């Protein structure tokens, strides 16, 4: 632990205290911005807005009827499929194996697609949040394979970013996903599909 005692730590803290010798007052933060939308989570208009945003990001959107498994299976490739260990039984595609912590994350490179749940989605920004619980799987699971099939329950669709942040636990790892991986680094032309999954399929489920 470099610079812990009497070293850099104390020096930097002393510098900061010295620099703030004018004793600035921390202002109250005005939170006049919207803390939530007008619609209840899962309202059909919110779901429509989410779909619009996801399509804009070039994600594939499937509205599942009663048969969620069939909706998922129609997009899965021939290559091996894995799913998050806590995926509910009635979302489980045939032939898929649960992810296990014993598997080296690097070996997920040979997996063709992965199926996970999600904890909350933001309609206005088209963002889906994974909390890496058994429902969403560890982080590498939704990163290394080339296709991510992500199930979003209508009741988890909120309007705004503040609503979403209130619903998740910041002490565990979180991933906010807004469309497939993309870059705009070449002449600011957007290209989908760089290092993360190049195909993002969002399956919308009414019940669950």
């Amino acid at each position: 632990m470099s610079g812990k005692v009497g070293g850099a730590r104390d020096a930097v803290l002393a510098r900061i205290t010295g620099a703030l010798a004018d004793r600035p007052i921390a202002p109250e933060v005005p939170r006049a911005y919207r803390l939530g939308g007008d619609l209840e989570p899962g309202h059909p208009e919110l779901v429509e807005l989410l779909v619009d945003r996801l399509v804009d990001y070039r994600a594939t959107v499937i509205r599942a009827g009663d048969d969620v498994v069939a909706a998922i299976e129609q997009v899965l490739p021939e290559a091996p499929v894995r799913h998050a260990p806590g995926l509910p039984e009635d979302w489980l595609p045939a032939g898929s194996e649960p992810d296990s912590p014993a598997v080296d994350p690097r070996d997920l490179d040979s997996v063709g697609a992965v199926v996970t749940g999600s904890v909350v989605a933001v309609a206005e920004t088209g963002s889906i949040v994974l909390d890496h619980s058994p429902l969403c799987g560890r982080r590498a699971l939704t990163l290394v394979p080339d296709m991510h099939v992500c199930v979003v329950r209508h009741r988890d669709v909120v309007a705004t970013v503040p609503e979403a942040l209130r619903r998740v636990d910041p002490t565990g790892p979180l991933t906010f996903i807004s469309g497939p991986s993309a870059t705009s680094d070449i002449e600011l032309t957007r290209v989908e599909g760089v290092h993360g999954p190049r195909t993002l399929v969002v399956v919308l489920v009414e019940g669950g």
Partner: protein
Amino acid sequence: MTTFLGMPGPPADATSELRGSVPFPVAAEAGLTNSRLRRNLSKATGTIRAKRAAVVAEVADWEELREAGRAIKEAALARLPELLVELEEQVEARGGVVHWARDASEANAIVVDLVRAKGVDEVVKVKSMATQEINLNDALEAAGIRAIETDLAELIVQLADDRPSHILVPAIHRGRAEIRQIFLEAMPGLDPGTLTDDPRQLAEAARAYLREAFLRARVAVSGANFGVVETGTLTVVESEGNGRMCLTLPETLITVMGIEKVIPTWRDLEVFLQLLPRSSTGERMNPYTSTWSGVQPGDGPAEFHLILLDNGRTRVLADPAGRSALHCIRCSACLNVCPVYERAGGHAYGSVYPGPIGAILTPQLTGLTGDSVNDSLPYASSLCGACEEVCPVKIPIPEQLVRLRAEHVEAYASAHRIPSGEAAAMRTASWIMGDATRFARAGRSARLGRKGIRSGRAIVPLPPPLSGWSSSRDLPALPEETFREWWARTRGGERR
């Protein structure tokens, strides 16, 4: 004029990538005369300006978000010592290790030691302004450690042995044809017969090139966009997934973060996750945002190190009128709207922080001496004010530019016993204008200069130091009579 009330910390050290070799006006010549660079920049900044404007316009509470963002940053700086100590506690309570670095050299040494302790000679890197600022890659190379930049634009810059020219898109000065050429020369196995300059194909080439590096890497180095104090949560906002790869796959993660990046509460993040993507890439949300707090057993790195970096920040902090430069969230919106940046290009600023924010942040980090190349940066602006309009945290950039110009004049005067040409001219002007008779006489004599100006240029070039003013400016045509003469003749138009 020096406004420091507190005791300023020392400036950023010489290792830092914050100084060019020549002042801005000299460096800008290269950009101004490079037509390809001008074309690339104008196309790219034009595209991003339009995207940003469209997605900002759809947010009804944008101004309220900006006001909240500004206040959160101001409040965080006011409470900085206690917030950093609490962040340290939170990160360590969750299995992370916190290090402190007074300057670039110290931060680099910590990273080198950590990498060596892992026994590896290669690290993968997430794009980070802090590690660019401290010139980490050179320090690693000197220690025999190869740093692989994994952001596409950073990779382009690295492979071309070039320097970044933009905060968000470091290779903004490169067009697609140039990037194709760079890849063909640097990436083994690419077929010049089939690789076109289609951005899709170029991105695919980068994916294949880096995939192997991600899978074998054991140590990653990142920066952080925000450090949430109350939960010890670090945040990386990105697009490509290279950030997720680096934050997830290697066993050891080292994050270098400037001390000004702290925000007190998790709730504060809701403001910045709305402000940053729309201001930066012009998207409603960036594809990937990762947050983590310490280490998570069975998920991601088993070892996490956070390095808190000063490197001149406490110097900026000591000036109450200048410390708002530390509010910057590195979105680069001010670069994209700046007419000076668009024409001169990022390299002209000589610092990893170019554009309007760079023009106020860089000289404050390194110090204005009266003779430093960075003394020219506060003048790299037409003061049009577009930067302040778009800044998501409302940094008063034009006001700070003017203040830093005044500070530079003072620093120059105290560094030199003879006054500058400008100071001498101002003193003379003050003497003339302080007396009505002298002023009237001066106005009449100025008329003698009328014949010397044609089409805005002096017929006979003015000698130094006057040429310093006239060489880059048109001279106005002088009228037949002075205002005082006109007034005496007409009484303000009453008598004709």
